């Protein structure tokens, strides 16, 4: 009972910590798929972000710095994902006490024993499933909401499930507040609080599925809800050293179905630690140095 009391107290504290958002100005220009942030110059991106999105120049600058590193590190490798990263205000999905580190490459605590993945993991994982506009994507483990927000800039059909009720409600609140401010792209995210093990049968099948919680096997209902030749990605391992398992549901000519497992680079081993220090045009060192 005592421990319960403590947990509830902590939950209250965390909820408080999320309430004050870094900026709450309305978005000046309605969202459209044609919006394309400048990718060549930091200053141009910041002024574009202030003008079209009404965002804080400080975070816009940090986002662009991180973007440069992600591109150099091949964490994002196509135009759609580059755009999605630049369009997604990561700071809106972090706890207030972590705002200073919103664009660090580190994973951050969001309460309830859950983290918001580092930008490099989100970038690599999402780039590797190559979401096309119009494809249906299911996320298991909404968490902070950042992953689905990023997906909403790739497709207009996103479903996400969170198992922890207070977290699901908090994140729904974050989306609603952002939609209210003019981030209309987040209207395409459907959320629910449920056991993600069973997927979202009513909305199935999905072209892509992203699972972001630890499990000792791939839930059969998720494999069933994947379209033939659909792709599922699952990070495996502790937060700082996750490998991303890529599962492809293959349908043979005779209709028989098999599943192929690989990592997201189809068998190639890729160094994992991201590079975070940007000095001028050069990236120096790792974020632990």
């Amino acid at each position, binding site marked *: 009972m005592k421990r319960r009391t403590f947990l509830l107290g902590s939950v209250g504290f965390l909820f408080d910590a999320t309430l004050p958002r870094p900026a709450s100005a309305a978005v000046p220009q309605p969202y459209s798929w044609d919006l394309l942030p400048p990718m060549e110059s930091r200053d141009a991106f910041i002024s574009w972000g202030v003008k079209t999105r009404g965002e804080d120049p400080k975070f816009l600058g940090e986002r662009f710095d991180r973007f440069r590193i992600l591109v150099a590190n*091949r964490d994002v490798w196509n135009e759609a994902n580059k755009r999605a990263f630049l369009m997604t205000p990561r700071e809106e999905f972090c706890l207030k006490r972590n705002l200073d580190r919103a664009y660090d490459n*580190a994973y951050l605590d969001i309460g309830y024993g859950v983290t918001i993945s580092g930008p490099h993991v989100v970038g690599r994982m999402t780039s590797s499933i190559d979401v096309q506009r119009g494809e249906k994507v299911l996320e298991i483990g909404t968490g902070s909401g950042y992953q689905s927000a990023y997906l909403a800039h790739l497709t207009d059909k996103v479903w996400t499930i969170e198992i922890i009720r207070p977290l699901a409600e908090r994140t729904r609140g974050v989306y609603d507040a952002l939609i209210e401010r003019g981030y209309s792209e987040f209207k395409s995210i459907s959320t629910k609080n449920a056991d993600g093990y069973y997927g979202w049968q009513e909305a199935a099948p999905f072209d892509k599925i992203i699972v972001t919680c630890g*499990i000792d096997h791939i*839930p059969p209902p998720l494999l069933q809800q994947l379209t033939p030749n659909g792709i599922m990605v699952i990070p495996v391992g502790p937060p700082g050293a996750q490998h991303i398992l890529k599962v492809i549901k293959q349908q043979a000519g005779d209709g028989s179905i098999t599943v192929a497992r690989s990592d997201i680079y189809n068998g190639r081993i890729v160094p994992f630690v991201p590079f975070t220090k940007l000095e001028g045009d050069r990236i120096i060192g790792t974020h632990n140095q």
Partner: protein
Amino acid sequence: MSLTILPKRCDGRAIPDPPVYFAVGLEAGAVIALQIAIMRIFAIGSWTHFGSLVVSLAMLGFGLMSTIMCIAKDWFARHWRLVCGAALIAFGPLAVAANLAAQQVPFNAVFLVSDPNQKWRLLANFLLYFTPFLAGAAFLGSVFLQAGTHFNRAYFADLLGSGLCGLVALGAMYVLAPENLILAPLLLWLAAALFWFFAVESRRMLVALAAAAIATFATHLWLAPALGLSQLAVSDYKGVAYARKFPDSQRVYAKNSPFGYLEIYASSYLHFAPGLSDNAAFNLKEFPVNAYEGMYIDGDGPEGIIRALPAAETDYYFYLPMIYPYLLKPDADTFVVQFGGGLSTAVALTKSRHVTVAESNPAVLDAFLNDAGLRRFTGDVLHDPRVSVVGYEGRLYLAHTARRYDVIDLSLADSTGLSNPGGFAIVEKFAYTREAMQTYMRALEPGGVLAVTLWNKEEPPKSVLKLYATMVEAARANGDADVAQEFFAASCYLSTTTVLYEKGGFPAAEVALLRKHTKAMSFDVVYDPGFRYDDTQTEKVLAGYRDQIFFDASKPPGDDIGDDGADAPPDTGMPDAEAGVVPATSMGRLAWHALIDGNFGDIARRYVFDARPLTNDRPYFAAYIKPLDLPRILDRLELVQDEWGYLLLWATLGVAALCASTLIVLPVIFGWRSVFSATPGKLRTMLYFACLGAGYIMVEVGLIATFVQALSNATVSAAILITGMLVASGLGSLASERFLDGAPSTLPKILLGIGALLVAYGLFIHAPLDWIGVLPYGPRLLFCFLLIFPPAFLMGFPMPTAMGSLARLEKDHMFLWAWGINGCFSVIGAALVPLVATSFGLSAVLFLSGAAYLLAIPAFFGVVLPIAARGPPDARRI
């Protein structure tokens, strides 16, 4: 008030009173009980190995106190009653205050590297828990100083008290909830203080004690809960914390014991199917619903407990990796090496005429045998007429039974397979050693199958490579003629790996059947008889894995592919794998190829991580980072997050060495010229006590790990070793008094005897432990105690003899300094044990301890050099 019981000098004026010895023994016991309580708090609230770090370093309190006392010796000599009284009274309140404060700034290992604040929180935890140990050290140090030539008696009380109270603290785990385990040291403290203040007849201090005791107990039991302050904050990242958040979660069982805090939760949100084939999703009509409850030990888990399933729902067993041996032996006489949550046993029962199942954790066994709810849920599986239960480790049973089995199963017995974000503690895994595998293989009928399934969620692969090497080496050690024919290995990428061994080799038809099943499950064949390996990939695979960890941090991956490649995923030059073959499988095949060819040593040397087999001497699935690679890993610690338990040991060693050397050097800075210049044999004295401090603790910690081989449980092993060694050494300390006069001639012989015994134990101890391991638990404890008695008894001599000699020679500063050096090197020695054991083996720990005792022989002659031999008489005092 008269106090004559503690002679101040070596004049033999008085014999100490028993109450003082009770006070010393109980306070020493309170210190050790507090250590155990803090360890448990860390184990349940966050991660055990961080508890080890905090507690190990907190023991530096003894070093710090000796330094302070050494520097201000005269003040302490004048005010020793006040110091003893104040330190005693302060211990309890400090313990409770430190714990409450530490639990309000819980440290989260998950963010140790990524969040700079966590380092300060860890430091705060250490500094807070340090304070009660400082108080304990002040009391014991003052008493030791006053005991002087009768140090051996005070030391006897100290050792005996520590030993017996350690046992009391372990017993307390049966009756006290983890958050209240701190009450055990508090009660011991109260008893110690009562003995002391009655002995010194101080009414004023008794009143102060009463006030402190009321405040202490009231704060822990009443005030903290009333203010909503947690006495044990469980990290949100512990397995059990998630189960508690599920809306329909219900705790159906909870029991605390020295074997762990066992909790079982029921929830529809718990799903288990370890290693399930992905193809089950498309071939199986029905999956069992609500089939599991989750078992958590010390908040870690879950391990799935399977419900008794109706026959129609057991089809899904066919898609689990543990079905493999039964494909070949459908009506087997089966032995399940570890019951765990019962899944292996449930699978075995569908395909066996009889199942013998072993479970080494008495708490788990008790729950499944006796709890009505669990018996109902599991269909009372352990009372099934087709099931026989062995209440200790399977490997020990199999080593001594004449019965032979068709199938021996060891499936996923060691962990839940989910990643542990705080890393894993270094734990002995005797069930997976070469010797254990030899035992399993011998206990098979001709044509019988041993099946071992392990999680292989590591990339680069680690534990599975060790498993392959261990099993092949075991077959060779058994004298098997053609090991190439006897193995089959299949894996599911980032899931599980199963290795099958058939005594006498797999017939071709069986190999074909296994291959067919592996394909049907979409698993990968890693090895089978007739296996061919393409060795053109060897260099690239080994280099690729090395680069994955030790890549050049100044060069982004794919930098060499130019601007044209900016829209492509990174490519660091690893070859495109064979179609559908992931690198981990290629590495597994390379390992098998080398193992069968006999050149695995070379591959293991070139591989990025330690891949040497497990033996009884080095029974670890841990410490994969090679020591020489450590400096290169420091800027990429997150890559090896599951190794933090091991890396923390190096950190502990580093911090302990730094703190200890500071503490040892401080008295020298303050008083080397004025005090120590008159004291001959300084360096040898320092060496002597350093050898004793490190040597004793290394034997103790090393034997705790070694005795798990017979006792099957680290907690019981710690209990019997701590108690047995300290009691035996206490008796040795008491007996040493009569040898004090002839110490220069007697003690070297005793040290030589200790050294010889330790080397002999290092060489031969595994044989008696194997024999003891099969006895009933009571005799097992007795024989373990008898086994450690000879060296432990002798190890009680050197410390009090030398301290008594220093007191006799009136080397008072040296007396305190020596005590501090001994304490500091104890901390260093304790941190050194797992590092030596994982690299060189447990026997090396005993050899090293033996060498320390032998090195103490020449050093001892520096201890007994009389002051008068050098320096003018007036230089003896400052």
